């Protein structure tokens, strides 16, 4: 099976894998991923490659999910340990490369994890270094937590369902803000700090949603 090599060229943003090889050092064939060569099956063990490069896509928040999945499956077919014996690969090395692909896919196929990862590799502040949240998120969180507590003690499930719906709505809105800010990062915008704050806010929201989900009615 041929690997999707062609579409990569020219799409990589310059900050992405400038230092990464685009041709196999063994057989000089173009590479779909810096991790291994689809032509000669050399395992290149490129540790410098980020998740985007590993799956051969540009370092952007905006992705084509179907394309990502197609690439992931095509690459997995080549390097999965089940194939190792026939492709003449060392099984342990194949497992390592395969787990790299799986991790890249896990992160990139999830909107939240992808935004967090993009922030990290673009040099944005980490969650431990920058705990700021936008505007009145903290007061809102406190109020919502109190409401969940009240709902826990009162019998009515109606109030609780309303809180859950409100949290789901807030979560969706926050994810939209994350997406908007991350797209600005794609365009070279200086929005890393605001993105950090929105991602922090989502962590609060997620915890609240878990709490609300745990309340029995």
């Amino acid at each position, binding site marked *: 099976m041929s690997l999707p090599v062609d579409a990569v060229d020219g799409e990589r943003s310059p900050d992405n894998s400038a230092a990464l090889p685009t041709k196999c050092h063994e057989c000089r064939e173009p590479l779909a991923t810096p991790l291994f060569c689809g032509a000669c099956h050399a395992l290149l063990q490129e540790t410098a490659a980020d998740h985007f490069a590993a799956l051969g896509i540009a370092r952007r928040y905006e992705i084509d999910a179907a394309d990502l999945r197609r690439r992931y499956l095509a690459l997995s077919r080549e390097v999965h*340990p089940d194939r190792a014996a026939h492709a003449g690969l060392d099984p342990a090395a194949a*497992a390592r490369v*395969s787990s790299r692909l*799986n991790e890249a896919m*896990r992160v990139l196929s999830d909107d939240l994890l992808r935004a967090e990862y993009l922030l990290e590799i673009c040099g944005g502040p980490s969650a431990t270094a920058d705990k700021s949240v936008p505007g009145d998120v903290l007061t809102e969180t406190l109020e919502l937590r109190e409401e969940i507590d009240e709902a826990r003690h009162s019998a009515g499930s109606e109030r609780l369902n309303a809180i859950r719906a409100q949290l789901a709505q807030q979560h969706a809105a926050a994810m939209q803000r994350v997406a908007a800010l991350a797209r600005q990062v794609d365009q070279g915008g200086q929005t890393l700090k605001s993105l950090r704050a929105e991602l922090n806010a989502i962590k609060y929201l997620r915890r609240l949603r878990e709490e609300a989900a745990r309340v029995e009615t």
Partner: protein
Amino acid sequence: MTRSADDPIVGIDLGTTFSLVAVFEPGGPRVLRDAGGEARLPSVVRLMRGEGGESSAIVGWEARDSAVEFTSSTVYSVKRLLGRSAADLKRESAHLNYSVEAGPRSTITLDIGGVRLAPEQISALVLRKLKERAEAELGRPVNRAVVTVPAYFDDAQRQATRDAGAAAGLDVIRIVNEPTAAALAYGIGARGSGFDVAEKPRSGPEIAVRRSPGGPIQLPMPHCNSQDAATAGDPARGPSETRTVAIYDLGGGTFDLSILRIESGVFQVLSTAGDTHLGGDDFDRAIAEALAGEIAALDAGFLQSAATRQALRLAAERAKVALSEKPSVQLVLDLPNGRRFSREIHRAEFEGWIAPLVERTLRLFDTAVRDAGLSFDALDQCILVGGSTRTPLVRRRVAEHFGRPPYTALNPDEVVALGAAVQAGILAGRRDDLLLLDVIPLSLGIETLGGAMGKLILRNTTIPCRATEMFSTFVDGQTAIKLRVLQGERELAEHCRELAIFELRGIPPMPAGIPKIEVEFLVDANGLLNVAAREVRSGVSAAIQVLPSRGLTRDEVARMMQDSIRFAREDIAAHRRVDLLNQVEFDTRKCEQMLDRLQSELPPDETARYRAAITQLRDFAASATDLDALHRALTDFGHSTIPLAERGIRAALRD
């Protein structure tokens, strides 16, 4: 390829109640049958002790059919014990007809009429029987196998399955999850033979259905797109239609629910949920328990008779099977006091008894769908697998829950073995168009300070997967670090399953906190954990000593391969003693080093208390004969020195 032709790989479904073997042939997978045409081999073993103390075993139908006569020497449902700890057994042992005791490292030893065996050895006897069947059929030695396990099996249970294979002389080259195997068979269009009779319940042992030997299975090719010449004749390379399916797998002893996406020959598991102690056996027990009161009214002491308990279990199983077809059934049981218990059971009554069990499976269905990030609407099909899905209540409740009738055209007994054979075909390079991407069913982590579970790999992560974590020392010159590896979803380490204690040795002596040890956790395609470590500064690879918390050591497996029946408890005890004494030496020395280091800041009475504890443990170890007591003493010592260790870490961080 030529090698694989000479060296076959079989697919084995090692089930709680029945086991099967299948092979991959050019026409597709085929289940292998015994001389009577029966594919299923009961996972039942009867052990006998000869005059000279040597043991032998009878495996399969004969053992099953004579289970009442030889109650105390017959072992069934041993899969429920595989890879479990003695502590897990409290709940299980009441239902067993043989005595079970704690073996080394929390393992289990069965005592069957004086023959002492590990559960792995019982399973090995079943595997060996299947291996012989395959060798007879194929006319050449069979040394490699793909063996299926419940998706929800943890690391220890998977390891135990592999060990059982080794003890049977089979290299288990891949462990595949049962629902995943079923999906694979479904996806390539294999249904298993005789699905026309699959709807009918099987009879009990006395009137076992022995079908005539079936020919090779004709494989329909449902995904073959005839318009696409490049893919013609190759079912899985057909239209790139993506389907999302749920596999509802209710077997004899275990329940699994897996959600998969099937897309251009790639079978990707999105999530899995299950219960390794929920299956058809529990339906039998529900009947037996519901009737116990009525039976006791006729013969108060009937439970004292192991043979009667066994007979009741089998009668309950027959009643369950008959109730899949008939609205009512008569259960008859001869009692020890000579009276006879006879009772009509109506289906509705039976359904009332098992309803809580069936509801449990539906809650797990919800969990799996949620974990896959999907809704029920997004599922294209729900496929029923496992003999217990013949129960009408199961079918009805699944249909109601799923919102549509489930897919029941697969032979629920054979489809898992067929899938295992397909995976064998993939590994042998005969189907390079197919690929399985499975997940790890339970999160993996390590114990962190304070007894919390620090998750490193989350459940439902695609395997193979990898996580790394940095560790350092907290005492000057410390050359070893101990890590406790856990599996489970709970927040506290004590509520999770301890898989192993890893000891990293050979760390170059450096001041506390200076070494940087990168520990890599790699879960392979079998769902088995491998650990590697290296000291980053020096580049030295730290040697890892794996102390499995449950299960067998490599030596034990090797010995079983030589002699699967003979069992030398003394050897294992000696082995364990050496391990424990080493541990005492290591822990006390480490404690002394810490005391020396913290001399200036530790109150003298506290120092004296620790020194006394060290002396006490060493004295105890020197003369200990009871290894369990020594293990307890060692654990207590570990607990009592936690404040010291914490102080050591604080000191190391401060300096």
